[in-house]
């Protein structure tokens, strides 16, 4: 994704702070969401995923400046783990449209003026 033309410049030091203090952020994340990991290796792995997600949140903030993005309860999951465990919509829109085009279930157009 190329950087957007108009880029919201959040204070540079805030970004570096996130990286530099990833471990401190991770510790407060673990406390805040009551996370527990089976052993030191898992903990280390989750910390590295968390660090990636800090960068991902920063990229999302740039791409989506009218919202606030940051650390959520999903910040120790890779995007694939997040999709597999917390989504669950089974079909693509394309096959959905194929299913409904001209189907008995099309909603009648409702008046929207006046």
């Amino acid at each position, binding site marked *: 994704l190329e950087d957007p033309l108009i880029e919201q410049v959040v204070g540079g030091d805030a970004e570096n702070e996130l990286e530099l203090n990833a471990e401190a952020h991770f510790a407060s994340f673990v406390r805040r969401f009551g996370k527990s990991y089976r052993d030191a290796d898992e903990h280390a792995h989750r910390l590295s995923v968390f660090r990636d997600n800090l960068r991902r949140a920063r990229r*999302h903030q740039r791409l989506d400046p*009218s919202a606030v*993005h940051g650390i959520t309860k999903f910040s120790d999951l890779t995007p694939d783990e997040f999709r597999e*465990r917390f*989504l*669950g919509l089974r079909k693509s*829109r394309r096959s959905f449209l194929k299913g409904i085009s001209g189907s008995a279930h099309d909603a009648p157009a409702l008046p929207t003026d006046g």
Partner: protein
Amino acid sequence: LPTEFDWREHGAVGPVKDQGSCGSCWSFSTSGALEGANYLATGKLEVLSEQQLVDCDHECDPSEPRACDAGCNGGLMTTAFSYLAKAGGLETEKDYPYTGRNSACKFDKSKIAAQVKNFSTVAIDEDQIAANLVKHGPLAIGINAVFMQTYIGGVSCPYICGRHLDHGVLLVGYGSAGYAPLRFKEKPYWIIKNSWGENWGESGYYKICRGPHVKNKCGVDSMVSTVTAIHTS
């Protein structure tokens, strides 16, 4: 069309729930839409069961026989409405509580709390979506959730967002302009109830921009369905 509308202010939206580590978003979207429709038909807000859909709904889509509802492994709201119309209806959360795991069906017909009269799919037209929302109650919708993993609050309006749908949620209202903290711009938005608990987003809710300049952001307008419930006195 009212410039703003929010079914939460009219008592048609149940509490925010948490699907846990289970791909059952589609059942929360389905039950939320039926809760609203049932409220409009009976005047009572019954909090309905997702677990009955997870355990018992294995309905397949007529246009794609291999795409069947499969509990924690995914499903689709319109096939869930079909299942409910055939099965007779949906029990309450209390009678059929959520466990977040696939298990054997324990549906008890005598405990049906809400019945589906019919369901419809709405065209990709934001005025029609708003009109169906106001007329039929909260709508079951699909969305691309890529920006939701890191979402904390505000009106999401990504410059670039895929439109392939991977998450099912509930559209409960719309606002005319939300304050965008970093952009100092007002943006009209949809109000979306999610199923990741109250400690995600804005107390469990998500706002995404709408309007002629940002149509169908993250695919939000492209899989919208309404359901009407059978009126019982």
